[in-house]
């Protein structure tokens, strides 16, 4: 099992290649799919049970559509690997983690010390997202009863 600082999962990395959304929807055997910024990730929702890896492309870091794609998938109950690939920079990683990404394939190398500092920097967050972080308003008013 590879121990990558850019992978935040305990299971073994998925080996199958990720196919495009169109290719995935056209056949039943694929277990890994790649989402481009313009794809509608909700088309995957009926198939989440068979998917082990979803790779979300970030051709340019300014295009933030992938953040919505990630949250939508986690909100739908997807528990497989959710990878951000491409122009992924260390300063975006904390936000991406909050949106549910648990692995990263950046085009440019990310310094691991900078990464660690970045991920552990913020103790508090204001809003709920796809991670388990408790938003400040919950801390202020106590957790709602389960």
């Amino acid at each position: 099992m590879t121990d990558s600082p850019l992978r935040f999962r305990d299971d073994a990395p998925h080996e199958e290649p990720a196919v495009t959304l169109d290719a995935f929807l056209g056949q039943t055997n694929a277990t890994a799919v790649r989402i481009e910024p313009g794809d509608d990730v909700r088309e995957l929702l009926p198939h989440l049970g068979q998917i082990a890896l979803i790779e979300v492309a970030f051709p340019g870091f300014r295009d933030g559509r992938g953040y919505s794609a990630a949250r939508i998938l986690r909100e739908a109950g997807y528990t497989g690997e959710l990878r951000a690939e491409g122009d992924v920079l260390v300063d975006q990683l904390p936000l991406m983690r909050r949106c549910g990404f648990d692995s990263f394939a950046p085009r440019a190398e990310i310094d691991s010390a900078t990464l660690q500092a970045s991920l552990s920097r913020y103790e508090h967050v204001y809003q709920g997202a796809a991670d388990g972080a408790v938003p400040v308003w919950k801390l202020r008013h106590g957790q709602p009863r389960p």
Partner: protein
Amino acid sequence: MYQYDQYDQSIVDTRVEEFRDQVKRRLSGEMTEDQFKPLRLMNGLYLQLHAYMLRVAVPYGTLSGKQMHMLAHIARKYDRGYGHFTTRQNIQFNWIKLDEAPDILAEIATVEMHAIQTSGNCIRNISSDQYAGAAADEATDPRPWAELLRQWSTFHPEFSYLPRKFKIAVIAAEEDRAAMRLHDIGIQLLKRPDEHGNAVLGAKIYAGGGMGRTPFVAHEIKDFVTADDLTSYLEAALRVYNRYGRRDNIYKARIKILIHEIGAAEYARQVEEEFAHVKTLGLDPPLAELERISAFFAAPAFDTAAPDTLDRSDPDFAVWLDQNVKPHKQPGYAIVNISLKPTVGIPGDASADQIDVMADLGTRYSFDELRVTHAQNIVLPHVRKADLYAVWQALDAAGLATANLDLIGDIIACPGLDYCALANARSIPVAQKIADRFASLDRQRDLGELKLKISGCINACGHHHAGHIGILGVDKKGIENYQLSLGGSGAEDASLGKITGPGFDEDGIVDAVETVTNVYLAQREEGERFLDTYRRVGMEPFKVALYG
């Protein structure tokens, strides 16, 4: 006003350290400018025409005397002794050094201030009514809702890389004093009776307004949202924009273009669909959180015995009183407007000394509270009538008593080509020439309410589309040229100005403004403002007078 708890302070302090690290990595070369630029913009740091410019947030335009003093201190210590108040209720410092920016942010954090998300393709400073908490016509103070949304939008992980900037305004009255209908999302708080006849507070939501290259007035997309649904509803609205806003062309990337292209009804439908899903996620804070925030905005301890009468015997004081002072909901009190538009000045600019004077007046006479308006002026919201004379004297001594609120001399002007790398023409010299032409206060008062707004480029930071008279500076083969527009309004009667015809040079535009005011004087009927006369007679008489 709102006070940080340990969580708010922790978040702002951490941001300072994060930015300090980012600056270090930029200066060392670990980060390129291309990688660093969005990060510094998300901390309000621009590279402008002459230097770095820092835009400090003034959330919903509210600040304390202590915070004002800090701004004066920053102006002295790190800048060149002045600041510029903006059309989004923020303040800008024009001569910042990158290697000092983290220290500035650290200093302002000690008084609960920041520069978070005052630029960048993210949710910007949430603006509000400068008379909040003082005006008699509001359903409630809108600012607790603005604070709730400020927190929700801060470092929102899904909405930090939107197609373009996103501006939200919150008001709570029928009269729109914050140009709410010219925002990406506008929120109007109001009360509705529920099925038992009890008044319930909720919000009407507008979307798709904005100025810039293609101005639009916002459409109503939701009739009534209650506080416990607001966060989910806005999540849905932003998510639809993030997913479907155009990313192929920065001039077509605002939500106003998306709504124009798919239609407001379709946008509203998509938001409703997303909202139904988002609502199940438990993202909405409990009402207790809004209540907690609202407690900070409780009415100040007004002196219920404060006399309601005034000594108007000083004629200069009386002039200022009539023009700049507005009624307060509490008997014995008044709302003071401080004009930052002296005739020979720079609209919206204040020296460090002037900022200190205003800070002291706020602390001493206005329950330690001041406001910034989107017209680039300052407000002391809660002044006892008995103190107005002393306040006016202090303002007058500091050059802050120009009695021109909402008159033609109360010009809104962006910094323009004198400061801004985006500009095509200078706006401030034009504002000064116009103010000089109309220097006579009697003349200004005769013209009455006349909102003149100047932008130095198509980005419209001067809000010229919303000017009764609007001026847009353009580049005509390397020479500054100025287009004139008439009939815009940022109030509840929102409308976009129409261009009169060919543009003018710097002297020509001043004459043109005078010409159109003369047409107004010749045509006006009893009680009509410039805007009313224009709407009644149309463009034709103005066009004829300008071009023959």
